């Protein structure tokens, strides 16, 4: 069987949900005729028609608001933000309307907001950001960050079927760079479950999104070069967070490296560190370390961007320090 890219996996997932459930529809900028800035929705207008694949003006706040209204009526809107950087234009609708609607009024909002995140394509400060924490911090939103094609398909389908608002963050560097064989037919991946991507006993790297691949590469090197088996935990979903899986790997290896592409201060690693320091403190044999982007905007120029992004050498250096501790 042919391998399926991360991008194609998301496309398949959406396509199948459009076929399965007549209440699912798409809304966004340039998603119709153009098929989306990254072509995730290519062919959908032709197949499903303008009623179900709706091109909008440039109005992020209204796109999210429209999705909220439609979801209130029981439809299942799946909206695309052209780049995750522009979600900020709809921030108020998301954190104040979407996130709080069920709590305040008991009315479910089954909606999905999809957006391409992350750096590595020289997109500069406005086409490279990782906005997950703005939404992880807001009670009432689910946040999903798939790292593999299998998960991307299974999680987008689970997100569309979920009855709460979901922010679905697709790392644009993975779109065409990773692929794998996918099972035939319908499957979903449960929201809120992390996955151990590599077993190990000497230390754990906890991460998500594109950094999973960096962690795996570093782990392979540490095994080959240092003889150290490193466990890699892919969180997959940031909210709800699989705290048990996090605590389990911490208790197992007693050494924790937290890795994300997002900037450091206020990034998810802080939250993970706090959970472990609170609930598995006695298991720790070493400081909890973080490898993250530094606290700057994402720079455009290649050497600056390379300095900004966490990568295998940075993870190796931190891991070796941690292993030595």
């Amino acid at each position, binding site marked *: 069987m042919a391998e399926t890219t991360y991008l194609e996996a998301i496309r398949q997932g959406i396509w199948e949900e459009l076929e399965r459930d007549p209440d699912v529809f798409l809304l966004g900028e340039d998603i119709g005729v153009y098929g989306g800035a990254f072509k995730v929705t290519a062919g959908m207008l032709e197949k499903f028609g303008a009623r179900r694949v709706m091109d909008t003006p440039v*109005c992020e706040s209204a796109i999210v608001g*429209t999705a*909220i209204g439609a979801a209130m*009526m029981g439809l299942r809107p799946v909206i695309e933000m052209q780049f995750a950087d522009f979600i900020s234009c709809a921030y108020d609708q998301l954190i104040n309307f979407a996130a709080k609607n069920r*709590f305040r009024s008991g009315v*479910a909002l089954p909606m999905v907001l999809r957006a391409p995140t992350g750096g590595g394509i020289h997109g500069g400060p406005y086409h490279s950001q990782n906005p997950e924490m703005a939404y992880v911090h807001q009670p009432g939103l*689910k946040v999903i960050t798939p790292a593999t094609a299998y998960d991307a398909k299974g999680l987008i389908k689970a997100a569309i079927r979920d009855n709460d608002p979901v922010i679905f963050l697709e790392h644009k560097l993975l779109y065409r760079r990773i692929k794998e064989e996918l099972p035939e037919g319908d499957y979903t991946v449960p929201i809120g479950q992390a996955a151990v991507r590599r077993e190990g006993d000497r230390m754990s790297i906890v991460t998500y999104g594109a950094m999973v691949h960096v962690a795996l590469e570093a782990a392979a090197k540490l095994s080959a070069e240092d003889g150290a088996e490193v466990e890699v935990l892919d969180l997959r979903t940031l909210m709800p967070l699989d705290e048990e899986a996090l605590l389990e790997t911490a208790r197992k290896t007693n050494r924790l490296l937290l890795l994300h592409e997002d900037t450091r201060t206020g990034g998810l690693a802080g939250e993970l560190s706090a959970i472990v320091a609170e609930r598995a403190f006695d298991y720790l044999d070493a400081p909890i370390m973080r490898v993250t982007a530094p606290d700057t905007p994402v720079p455009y120029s290649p050497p600056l961007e390379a300095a900004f992004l966490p990568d295998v050498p940075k993870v190796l250096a931190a891991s070796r320090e941690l292993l030595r501790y």
Partner: protein
Amino acid sequence: MGKTVKHVTKKRTTAGPNEREIVEPLLYFMKLQREMEDRIEHKLYRQGKVLGGVYTGRGQEAIGVAPALLAQPGDVLCPCHRDMGAYLVRGMKPPQILAQYMGREDGPTRGRDGNMHMGDMKLGLVSFISALAAIVPVAGGIALAMRYRGQANVVINWHGDGATSRGDWHEGLNLAAVQKLPIVYIINNNQYAYSTPLELQMPVKNVADRAVAYGMPSAIVDGNDALAVRAIAQKAIAYARAGKGPYMIECKTFRMTGHSAHDAAEYVPKKLFAEWAKRDPIVRLEKHALGKRLLTKAEIEAMRARVVAEVDEAVAWADSRPYPDPATLLDGVFEARA
């Protein structure tokens, strides 16, 4: 390149045949809103039983009530903070509303939110949020869902003059107009946004002047004339229901209070209150009903008594109800796991 902005202005003060059947519920719900809000502001708030901000629609009751009475089953209403009348018309009961204001378990938000921040989708009532105009694109989404399902329903979305300065207002109206969604916007232009007078809010004379930017028909109406509001709302609702797209109605009115209960409105020239008091929509409709012998003095008095009794009873009931159990605080952020 000339283009003419035309506002349909309705000043009709008669409702045609069956006028009694039209006037009676109008008057009843306006009175009920007035009594509810008087009680909340002048009694319950001062007694400390209602907390937080208290906003009333005193003097503006026609604007919420008249369009709401025209809504059909399946239509959805998105009222704002001065439109309690719309909730009452749609079937939200005074005891529930008071339980909401008093933070009790039995309010529609079960104590999670306060005042008019409530809804009931079974009644076609949406719970708005504080951020002004955030409801506008949401109303569009509801209208979109109606069209998606092939329902000949409409959304009625109320808000104030101040809300029209916000980005969400523009984005929401533009998208609704591009998509020709079935929405009627009812704007209560009460001449202030909190303390800010119109001339510091907008560079045009009428909010309705802005409808041209959305290729949308609009009308300006005396918002204190319930029958005039009704007449134009009827037209606008028919237009939207026919699939022709959104319609904007600007209701000229005046906020007969401060912005909220704690605001003495010292920034408003006193004479404006005096002037607008003469145009009270309830008094006007009563006069009309008496003058045209649609209702008798006794009937109006009986209506007043009924309203007072209803509110008395509602207050007593709401005040007897428990606060929500703090142990439930974490419930309902997400769907409960099976």
